[in-house]
């Protein structure tokens, strides 16, 4: 019951966040200097098309009414028409979304899988060489410039060693199991560059929380009872250290999908991030705006899932 209440509260919060994201973009775009009509109607559209877009989005009306009609269009799934491709923005982006979800989802999972043992290693060797190396490595990873890393990875593992394909998301003419293999092989390098970028945050956080947890009374009690240190770390301390670490996911997912813009461009990965890159070159504002709204929705959903996971993990939420 408590969990249900908790869940619905989180859901409400997610919807609120999304509304906020949409509202922020709406007013940013309208209130910035420049022609607000630019946000929905291209200067190269025909007069009829332009008229229709302007009426659809109510640009002939006062700002607040415009805002309402914008929300209304959005609820109907109308993100506008791409200037350059002359197609509904939603159609264009929905073709791209799965690839972004695949890339960022895999990167997130890989980060957690690799980051967990690294964090534990650093925490249990606190102050030692391993600890220092992990920390500095984490900091360096966060500070790398994604395109340079991307090209370097492609150069070494794609061209030099030939282990992975250069660019794209999957081969054509592959079916069945081969299709999965192909998708996975195309995924490795872009995923690796995203892992490098964000793993530092997770490792450093986990390390901090684990060090704290290891100093808590229940760990000392466990030690006093004669539990081996390994059991203390993995069974008692880690569980408690992981809880606050999950909240980091919420903060980092936004950063992660942002990093996808540069990564997908360099790796010719057909996701939403690359759609953003392409629409920047063409000043295709509806696509940029739509991509942001979709990415914000992705982040909200990711946060919601994390929150639920947190709810399951944390006894206090369950009991409350």
């Amino acid at each position, binding site marked *: 019951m408590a969990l249900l209440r908790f869940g619905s509260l989180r859901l409400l919060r997610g919807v609120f966040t999304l509304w906020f994201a949409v509202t922020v973009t709406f007013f940013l775009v309208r209130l910035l200097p420049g022609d607000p009509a630019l946000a929905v109607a291209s200067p190269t559209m025909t007069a009829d098309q332009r008229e229709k877009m302007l009426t659809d989005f109510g640009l002939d009306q006062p700002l607040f009414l415009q805002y309402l009609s914008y929300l209304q269009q959005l609820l109907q799934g109308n993100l506008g028409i791409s200037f350059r491709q002359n197609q509904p923005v939603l159609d264009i982006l929905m073709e791209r979304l799965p690839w972004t979800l695949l890339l960022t989802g895999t990167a997130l999972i890989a980060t957690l899988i690799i980051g967990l043992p690294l964090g534990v290693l650093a925490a249990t060797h606190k102050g030692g060489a391993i600890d220092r190396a992990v920390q500095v490595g984490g900091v360096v990873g966060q500070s790398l410039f994604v395109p340079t890393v991307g090209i370097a990875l492609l150069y070494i593992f794609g061209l030099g060693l030939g282990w992975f394909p250069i660019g794209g998301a999957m081969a054509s003419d592959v*079916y069945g199991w081969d299709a999965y293999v192909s998708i996975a092989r195309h995924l490795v390098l872009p995923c690796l560059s995203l892992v490098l970028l964000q793993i530092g945050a997770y490792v450093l956080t986990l390390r901090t929380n684990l060090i704290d947890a290891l100093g808590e009374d229940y760990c000392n009690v466990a030690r006093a009872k004669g539990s081996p240190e390994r059991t203390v770390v993995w069974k008692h301390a880690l569980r408690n250290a992981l809880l606050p670490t999950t909240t980091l996911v919420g903060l980092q997912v936004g950063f992660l999908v942002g990093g996808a813009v540069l990564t997908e461009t360099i790796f010719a990965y057909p996701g939403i991030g690359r759609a953003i890159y*392409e629409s920047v070159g063409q000043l295709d504002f509806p696509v940029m705006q739509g991509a942001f709204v979709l990415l914000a929705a992705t982040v909200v959903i990711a946060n919601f899932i994390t929150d639920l996971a947190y709810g399951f993990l944390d006894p206090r939420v369950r009991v409350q």
Partner: protein
Amino acid sequence: MTRSRITRAGWRGAAVAVSVAAMMAACSPSNPDASDDASGPDGGAADADGDDDSGRPAGEAGGDIRIGTTADVVNFNPLVGNSRTDSWVTNLMYPAMMTINADAEKVPALATDWGYDDDGLGAWIEIRDDMTWTDGTPLTAADVAFTIEAIKEESLGTVAGMIGALDGAEAVSDTRVEFTLNRPDGAFINSVGFWMPIVPAHVFGEVDSVAEFANDEEWVSAGPFVLTQVDRGQRYILEAVEDYPLAEGGRANLDRVVFRVYPDVNTQVLALRSGELDLIANALPPSMVNEVAGDDSLQTYQVPSLGWAHMQYNMRREPLDQVEVRRALAHAVDYEAIRQVVLGGNAVSANSSVLTPTYPQWAEEDAEEYTYDPDLSRSLLEDAGFTDSNGNGMFDDLSFEMVYDSGDPIIATWAELVRDQSAEAGIEIRLAGLERNTYMDRTVNRDFDIYAGSWAIIDEPQSNFTLLFHEDGFINYAGVDDAEINRLMEESATALTVDEAREPLHEIARIVRDEVYDNVMYVEQFTFAGAAGWTGLDAKPSELLSVVNPQSLASAQAPE
């Protein structure tokens, strides 16, 4: 619906990522067109060399050619699309009546013969009788007539600007189309023949508005290849058409052409070097040419541009209406440096003449390029009455905005040189690198001080000069309106031989240079790159035709 297969695979993959458990239990995606796959899926293990894109149907010799491009197709309608990728893909599907050979002469493609009536008010084209659309309908003169009428009626694309002389077109038989002209136009046939892709009347005629017809599925075409699969952001697959009489042997050698999209040119070249691409459709950036030319596993194709790169000064605006100011601007720039440094030597001087060396039959031999002489620029401006009252080295009230397409790295680069060098001569230039469509919009509306850009193709000077220099010329951006030039253009248009036309054309070129109506800077040499060992590829002049023109790809053959 093959085009959504990839998307579905992506969704499935995304689901896999979200749940590791699903990864374990993942069932294989099924082959949507199992008939193609009678021999079973290509073994993934056989492709373990790092290139799993080479899967070609077993047992067929033709195989694929994988071509890199930097952008997606924006518009599949050949009468509307204007990006390079659009034309590379649609050119393989919608035939033109003529093409050009290596000497930039018009030669037959779909057309077999053509000519004008004696009074110059009628023109006719004969086309082949053995062409069919991919749905089995024969391609006839009615399709040609339909296409040109649609272009005229809805003012579609660049061709609309070339058919001002057209009154009407009529298919008098299955193979002959006749045009009625309202004035003699010596370049009408060549322009239409070369530039106009023929579309099927029984498909394009069914829609309300050809301009708004997306043509994005179930393509009916008549080129060597036809689109069968589109994965936006990834690839465009065209399959060979069984009956293509223009190719030797009645069919393209290859089975498929696969365009793959790489938004970043660096990644694109890496993919070529690693063997994942066989060819790159876009011209290499000059700074990459040496690197690629030194790689034994690659081969390069060089072709000249059929146009030129230039700056135009908007003479509708003060003080650019003064010839001294335009001359000062022209002498402030070091063109040789731009050719050597920005283009890495991959360009030749046009001697500041609109009759470029690419067309030897017209070229002006004694023309001389504007010398780079900032001091001359300064004294020209001083003579014209400009002063530098605050002594900061810059003339007062002499500041120009230069518009260019920021997506063109070469022009964007030399624009900076032009700005810096003009500042040496005391002229301030403000750079306005614009998004391509905004830039086109600004130039078409003549809303600029200085325009920097390039013509892809200026053929047929006898008539095309009218577009450039006539008061109402379609691309007369600078606002040239010169009675002497008008007279000379008439003289050249009515000339029947090259020798007769040469003199008035030379005179026009001289006036254009003296008055700085058009500042021709260089003629670019394009370099295209592909994997070594391919045969039959035939690079044609200009980046629009490139190595991926239909003749080239129809005869291309993979290395043994």
